[in-house]
């Protein structure tokens, strides 16, 4: 009933049009690149100064300096380019990235995103490029489990963790549903087979509206 990480990635990939400039956040979103339909040409951006990022080379091969935001080795596709860090962030912050896919700790009904810090103080705080990406990308897609490992909702009326950015999320893809952020809050567009509306609402802290043309995810 619940989608696997691969299935979630495949569903997100369906919504990335041919010719898009895309930045994939670290974690779950990196799976999306492997499952974009092969007839689509997507230009992947990496915050450390790469456009046209390609798949990881065979282990032990490739250029050790050519890494992605997750510090893994990647390749460069024909048409790709290298540029410096400030230009990379002009692209991110300046509205030039068509789509970013990000992970989340929490998403609020008004589109607030919390994905860089929790309330746990034992590790040093770290933010990276998340805030620049969240405020700058034209379309912000969140890919996340619907609840935490111990069953607490991640879709809330308001975030309790420090915000990455306010009112930026457009659509959320979870292992149970696909939801849009609308002016009146979360709207469920797609729902996994075998889960009722009430069962989804039980796992969500914010009120849900169900689209009249709701489909099976």
């Amino acid at each position, binding site marked *: 009933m619940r989608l696997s990480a691969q299935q979630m990635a495949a569903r997100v990939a369906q919504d990335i049009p041919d010719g898009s400039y895309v930045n994939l956040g670290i974690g779950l979103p990196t799976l999306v690149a492997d499952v974009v339909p092969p007839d689509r040409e997507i230009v992947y951006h*990496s*915050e*450390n*100064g*790469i456009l046209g990022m390609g798949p990881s080379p065979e282990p032990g091969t490739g*250029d*050790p*300096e*050519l*890494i992605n935001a997750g*510090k893994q080795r990647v390749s*460069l596709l024909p048409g790709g380019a*290298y*540029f*410096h*860090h*400030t230009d990379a*962030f002009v692209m*991110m*912050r300046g509205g030039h990235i068509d789509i970013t896919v990000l992970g989340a700790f929490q998403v609020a009904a008004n589109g*607030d995103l919390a994905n*860089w810090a929790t309330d746990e103080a034992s*590790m*040093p*705080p*770290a*933010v*990276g*490029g*998340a*805030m*620049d990406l969240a*405020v*700058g990308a034209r379309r912000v897609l969140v890919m996340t489990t619907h609840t935490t490992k111990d069953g607490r909702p991640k879709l809330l009326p308001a975030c309790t963790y*420090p*915000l*990455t*950015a*306010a009112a930026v999320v457009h659509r959320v893809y979870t292992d149970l549903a696909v939801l849009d952020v609308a002016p009146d809050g979360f709207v469920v567009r797609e729902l996994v087979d075998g889960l009722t509306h009430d069962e989804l609402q039980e796992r969500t802290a914010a009120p849900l509206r169900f689209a009249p043309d709701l489909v099976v995810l």
Partner: protein
Amino acid sequence: MIDKRVPSLEDAVAGVRDGDTVLVGGFGNSGVPVELVHAVLEQGPRDLTIVTNNAGTGETDIAALIREHRVRKIICSYPRSAGSVWFEKFWRAGEIELELVPQGTLSERMRAAGAGLGGFFTPAGADSPLAQGKEVRVIDGRRHVFEKPLQADVALIKADRADRWGNLVYHSAARNFGPVMATAATLTVAQVRAFVELGELDPEAVVTPGIFVDRVVIA
């Protein structure tokens, strides 16, 4: 005659002083001027403020500076990496100060310094606790936080090739912070793979013009 080439790493870092703010290029392990940082470690200055993207991993370069008690403060965007044990240890013990800056803001603050600007307004971080204590202004209906320039004493960067005028070209994603850091320090030092003759670098493709660079060394 202009000749920014220096014969040794020791010559390259001569004059780095106690209390200096030092920009260190690199993203993860890509483009880190490891040999220049080790030369600074050898030379001995203490009480440094290091500006860099990550807080060092393992036992080398930035991690070594921290381990050897040379770093008072680190200004960075992502100090939490696999293997950043020395930073974490010192941070937990309250022995190193952390100023956390969103990565794009880090870059742009250095650019503002290099560009002679007084600062800028950015939406990144404006809705987060990182904006506390700073001016926040609503511009076109969106919150922006005012960020000040980040000017440094020293920049240590890694490039691929240099000529005697200090013009630099880089290698793949190792470029990252190098070009902006080169503009934002009083003393900019680049370690390179090789020197080339003046005129060998295509003027259409020089990434860091030598005006920003003071010393170049092979490492």
